[in-house]
């Protein structure tokens, strides 16, 4: 690659202009640039055991929510853009893109010669219909808030799409890589959400929700260096032990969400590799900042200091993760504060001191948890309860039913467990869950300075200034925010040694950024 776009080296200019300078050359090289010795081989059927997937899964892109549907979708569909293993943006269906000076109008050039599985040639109409599926008054899509900033989207010729935004957003092409925004064929200006047709690496043979999906390689796939398997079988195996056993007994080749309690035992098994990727996935405990006692920042700081992060990573993640510093930006992000912010540690005395500041000697609070929030949430609550007792905080753990957790507990109870898969950009993460009044601002935290910085950073040109602003925002969330972010959890997968992975596996989502079917191969 003549001009490598890396995590640190990604400039605003390169995002703005996309891959125009790279042209076709960028496409020949696979994302993770491997040693020549590991030349991918074609062939074989990859059987994937996923820890999610249910009988109610649907083909509608607006409904995709768990890793099963996401990997399934990414195997058969393409997107405008793709995030590579280094976290950098790569062109996919959009060959290149360009922004207006205020970053409010974006022009995407659509790749020529791409066809859907049905044989239909892909053009700008398909792209527009696919994105419009998530927009508008009647949209039922989970991705609606993501595309809400779009005021107009129209074709300029058969292979150019012009998107107008409410306000400038330098990271807009990143958003176009979101897993919901798959490109489907348009008919009369709309896509059929029940259609199985796509332009991705694999063609769907059969899909029985909650049982299995079978796909075979798309013989006309435009990426010649990707999609090495002859076919894919995706099995939902929700029970952790069943998933591991299926791998051990050779009934599947890859599994995700390895049970962390027994991962050390799985490692000993012959012919199995455990793959752990440090990503942006983090586990959080938002406190309702509008409700007493959490409305007092001293109380929030007391609780934050009463959490033993090392112990949580050690016991809940079995070491497969890193401690969090009460802000949601991961080391995989471009503008992670790093050493600029001191790591917060367990300190019962400091916690007591903050309680005193709030005028309290002791504090009684209830934490709502469920393993629906994240695996091990209940145990994490128990550990937090044990450790915070020394600081005079009586934390009662309440296990809530997993069923209905997100609609009934999350953002309804004042103090609850939650998780975030993470977002590829700081702006996306912050404006999703920390901006005042954002839909998913789970702690209902409002901070004028933070909002101001967020808006400014979004259209800031200078990378150093941008970094400065994002670091200040991380500090604000850490010291004034209303969310405890004690740990970043690795994506832990396991595969048989017959499967070869690229040298670098993408950290943005599980299963190599959902692209396991496209990027991996059999030895």
């Amino acid at each position, binding site marked *: 690659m003549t001009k490598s776009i890396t995590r640190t080296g990604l400039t605003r200019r390169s995002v703005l202009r996309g891959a125009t300078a790279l042209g076709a050359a960028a496409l020949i090289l696979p994302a993770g640039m491997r040693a020549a010795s590991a030349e991918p081989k074609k062939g074989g059927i990859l059987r994937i055991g996923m820890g999610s997937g249910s009988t109610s899964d649907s083909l509608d892109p607006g409904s995709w929510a768990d890793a099963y549907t996401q990997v399934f979708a990414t195997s058969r569909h393409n997107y405008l853009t793709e995030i590579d293993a280094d976290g950098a943006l790569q062109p996919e269906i959009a060959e290149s893109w360009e922004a207006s000076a205020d970053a409010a109008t974006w022009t995407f050039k659509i790749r020529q010669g791409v066809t859907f599985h049905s044989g239909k040639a892909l053009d700008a109409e398909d792209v527009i219909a696919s994105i419009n599926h998530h927009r508008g008054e009647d*949209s039922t899509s989970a991705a*609606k808030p993501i595309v809400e900033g779009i005021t107009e989207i129209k074709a300029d010729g058969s292979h150019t799409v012009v998107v107008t935004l409410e306000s400038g957003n330098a990271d807009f092409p990143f958003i176009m890589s979101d897993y919901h925004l798959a490109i489907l064929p348009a008919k009369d200006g709309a896509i059929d959400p029940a259609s199985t047709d796509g332009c991705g690496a694999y063609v769907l043979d059969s899909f029985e929700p909650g049982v299995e999906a079978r796909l075979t390689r798309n013989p006309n796939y435009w990426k010649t260096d990707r999609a090495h398997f002859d076919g894919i079988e995706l099995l939902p195996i929700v029970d952790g032990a069943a998933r591991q056993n299926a791998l051990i007994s050779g*009934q599947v080749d890859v599994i995700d969400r390895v049970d962390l309690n027994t991962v050390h035992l799985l490692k000993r098994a012959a012919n199995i590799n455990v793959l752990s990727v440090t990503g942006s996935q983090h586990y959080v405990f938002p406190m309702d900042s509008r409700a007493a006692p959490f409305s007092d920042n001293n109380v929030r700081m007391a609780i934050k200091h009463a959490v033993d992060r090392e112990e949580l990573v050690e016991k809940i993640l079995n070491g497969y993760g890193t401690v969090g510093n009460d802000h949601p930006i991961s080391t995989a992000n471009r503008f992670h504060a790093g050493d600029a912010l001191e790591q917060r540690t367990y300190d019962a005395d400091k916690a007591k001191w903050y309680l005193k500041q709030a005028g309290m000697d002791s504090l009684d609070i209830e934490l709502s948890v469920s393993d629906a929030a994240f695996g091990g949430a209940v145990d994490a609550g128990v550990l937090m309860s044990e450790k915070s007792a020394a600081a005079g905080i009586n934390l009662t753990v309440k296990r809530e039913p997993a069923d209905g957790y997100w609609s009934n507990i999350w953002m309804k109870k004042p103090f609850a467990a939650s998780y975030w898969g993470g977002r590829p950009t700081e702006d996306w993460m912050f404006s999703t869950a920390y901006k005042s009044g954002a839909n998913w601002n789970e702690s209902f935290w409002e901070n004028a300075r933070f909002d101001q910085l967020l808006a400014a950073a979004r259209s800031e040109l200078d990378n150093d200034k941008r970094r400065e602003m994002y670091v200040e925002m991380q500090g604000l969330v850490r010291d004034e925010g209303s969310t405890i972010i004690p740990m970043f959890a690795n994506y832990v997968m396991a595969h048989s040694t017959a499967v070869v992975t690229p040298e670098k596996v993408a950290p943005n989502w599980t299963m190599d950024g959902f692209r396991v079917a496209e990027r991996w191969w059999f030895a």
Partner: protein
Amino acid sequence: MAHVWRMIAQRLALGFLTLFVVSLLIFGATELLPGDFAEAILGQSATPETIAAIRRDLGLDLPFHTRYIGWLSNVLQGDFGKSLANQQPVIELISKRLGNTLFLALYAAAMAVPLALILGILAALFRNTVFDRMSNALALTSISFPEFFVAYILILWFAQTGYFPSIVRFSPGIGFGESLYRSFLPALTLTLVVTAHMMRMTRAALINLLASPYIEMARLKGMSPMRVILRHALPNALAPIINVVALNLAYLITGVVVVEVVFVYPGLGQLMVDSVSRRDIPVVQAVALIFASAYVLLNLTADVLSTLSNPRLMHRR
């Protein structure tokens, strides 16, 4: 015989009433569950506008009674509707899984019922011997382990060693023998789970009769103990045994969701739990009706068989 027919007719009518009440109860309970389909399907990604849009689309914003009556009138016309989640016709979703569930239930029953009867009869015959105590203790141990735990142990012994598959996959076009082989472990798990109950009831029912005067008489006439049990005690002990067998068969059809989860067996239980958690009411209702009908029919069969097996009940009045 006439009153048996009358009983069947009466019980079937009551059965329909039961089904109706069950459908109302389940509909109501699903309504009371926190959140509806729109909230459940969007989960963490829900926003007020998208929730409202989904409700509008699917008519979830209509009042409870309107939706229930609408559902009921459609069902009475034979239309079970479409799944809210993926728009597939409910009948289509269910038919294949119903087949799988019945297959597994019959498979397990075919192993468990003879085993339980034989063990129960032998235990009654050799009551209070080492054999009796050991078979009892083993059967009790096997039911006091939770199902998933029994399943994991069987997986450790039989699947990791490569004898049997640990997850059940019915590929298209596999033969009957292959199906039996692939679903052996779940069937064995269920066998271990239900055998003890039936075996102990058989043993208890038989022992209960052994003190009766007519058994004493048969014994005094010098009949062999085995013959006494098979010819004289067993026919009179059939009613409770048939009842407990029916109860366990109903369990095998309706209660095996945990085993389905562990062995990834595509049965109705998993469909029911998934649909409850997504508040997919048409599917929940249809599966609940199937479960309830299975229970009603098995119960009825058990009562008819008990009546037929008992001359006193047959020739009443």
